């Protein structure tokens, strides 16, 4: 067919040649995705299906895998430990969002300015991003020592608490350390977002006599809508993955007061050797992750969904 078309010397035929070539091109292009697709399917999609299957299995992590039917689901759903972990996961997610978003938004707007010292500040803000969660957790453990830590150093006795021994203090500490580690990253996102707002909007507002605060709420915030959604999505979905930090900082304690879902899954699976129930928790984690991502996308407006995700 392509032969017949290519011999016809008119523009219509040329256009058709292009579409035929387009089809071949698509095939050639499709092969370019093969390696990425292979890795993603084998080490992400298959495990995703695997975790669903394992949630109906009984396995201690070493021996043979047996069937458990719905047993794991019943036992996990009847376990108050699940609801503790769920509640805590959402508490830390919500608190992290409420703490980090305003701080990183304001810092992002602030550091988007052109003065030199702001650029210097932004460099230092970036430091926590270079540290591993293990390093951050270990550093804060030392820092919080009531006798040899920050409290004595700064002469602030109210900081000398048993941070890792009292449940509500431990939760607060986890929220603070998460903010310490991740606000810099979100600041960076907002800084980039602010720099893309057209200056003419502010000039027009200036002429209309709008003050700084009015400009912030009527120009900056609405213009940052998609940046806010991008940052929030990363923050909220990311909050499901604070495993390392909490594992090293508190190990889930005191008691179970900082045992979030991801940690609950690890401890059930790799410490108590109950891979089946742990897989149930993992399935719940996936569902929460997907639900949150879809919800946040929808916030961005349905028609904008495509470009929305691309913004991440």
């Amino acid at each position, binding site marked *: 067919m392509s032969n017949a078309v290519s011999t016809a010397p008119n523009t219509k035929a040329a256009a058709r040649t292009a579409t035929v070539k387009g089809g071949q091109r698509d095939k050639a292009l499709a092969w370019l995705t093969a390696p990425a697709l292979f890795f993603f399917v084998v080490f992400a999609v298959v495990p995703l299906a695997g975790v669903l299957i*394992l949630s109906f299995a009984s396995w201690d992590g070493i021996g043979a895998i047996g069937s458990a039917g719905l047993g794991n689901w019943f036992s996990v759903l009847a376990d108050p430990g699940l609801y503790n972990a769920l509640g805590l996961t959402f508490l830390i997610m919500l608190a992290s969002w409420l703490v980090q978003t305003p701080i990183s938004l304001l810092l992002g707007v602030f550091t988007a300015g052109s003065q030199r010292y702001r650029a210097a500040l932004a460099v230092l803000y970036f430091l926590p991003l270079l540290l591993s969660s293990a390093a951050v957790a270990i550093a804060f453990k030392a820092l919080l020592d009531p006798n040899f830590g920050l409290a*004595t150093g*700064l002469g602030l006795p109210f900081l000398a608490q048993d941070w890792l021994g009292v449940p509500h203090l431990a939760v607060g500490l986890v929220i603070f350390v998460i903010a310490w580690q991740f606000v810099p990253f979100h600041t960076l996102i907002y800084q980039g977002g602010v720099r893309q707002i057209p200056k003419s909007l502010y000039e027009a507002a*200036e002429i209309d006599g709008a003050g700084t605060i009015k400009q912030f709420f009527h120009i900056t915030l609405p213009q940052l809508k998609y940046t806010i959604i991008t940052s929030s999505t990363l923050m909220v979905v990311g909050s499901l993955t604070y495993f390392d930090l909490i594992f090293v900082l508190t190990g889930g304690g005191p008691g179970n007061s900082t045992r979030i879902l991801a940690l609950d899954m690890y401890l059930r699976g790799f410490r108590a050797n109950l891979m089946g129930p742990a897989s149930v928790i*993992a399935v719940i984690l996936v569902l929460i992750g997907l639900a949150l991502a879809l919800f946040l996308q929808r916030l961005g407006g349905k028609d904008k969904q495509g470009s929305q995700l691309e913004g991440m």
Partner: protein
Amino acid sequence: MSTVLKSSAEETPAGAPSNPAAPKRGLGSRMRRLNVPAGLGGWIWLAIIIIPVYYVVITSLKTQAGYFGQNPLALPAEPTLENYQMVLEADFAKYFMNSTIVTLGAVIPTVLISFMAAFAIVRGKGRFLKLVNGMFLMGLAIPLQATIIPIYLMIIRLNLYDSLLALMLPSIAFAIPLTVLILSNFIRDVPNELFESMRLDGCSEWQTMWRLALPLTRPAIVTVAIYNGLHVWNGFLLPLVLTQSPGLRVLPLALWTFQGEYSVNIPAVLASVVLSTLPILVLYVVGRRQLLSGLTAGFSK
């Protein structure tokens, strides 16, 4: 707010020195006064970031006696490197090598195969490519932890348990979605005329990809390489679950075990924290500009 300041400064040069942290230059303008809290907040946050870092560094230079006897924030009376010596003697070089191997072994394949996929997704129109793209986008929402149990099972079955390769394979898979997304955003910005002229010159898609798209997306490639590198370098869960031998520890895991073994010797533990961060810090100092501008563009388009 700063943008406001900038634009007003452009209009009226007199308003140029509207430095919020320097109110001494005059409080005449309403805007300058309102920005004092912002400047103050900026500096407070800086203190929150810097004090812990400062504490870790100076404590790592203290002797045990200095740690127990001095004000914790005071500079060490007799600074010592013996903590560093101790950490370095505890196989630090080996852990450093392991981390380097895993990071390079994960990042190079990730960037290469993601670039090819991103190019195809941008250039192609077919339903299959749309589907692939959609799948990768969904992948963004899947937490790595949730799949760790089947990954553990697969790695055992593949006879890869307790090897460095076991850490690379899942790292590659989970880095693909975001890498493809960022790279395809950049490739999309390449003007269509350039692709057209390559096509008219008789170049295949394969040639177009390497000769046109690759050079033009170099900044984005550096960005995703650094971003993924940081993630893999600092990764903790995969090494914790998929390796066992002390000889295969990567830095974050080594830090954690070291902390367990030497919890009485806080200066030594903190020296290990500093040492584990140092290589990344050096890279950061060298490639800061590239990293910051790349990340800004990559995440806030």
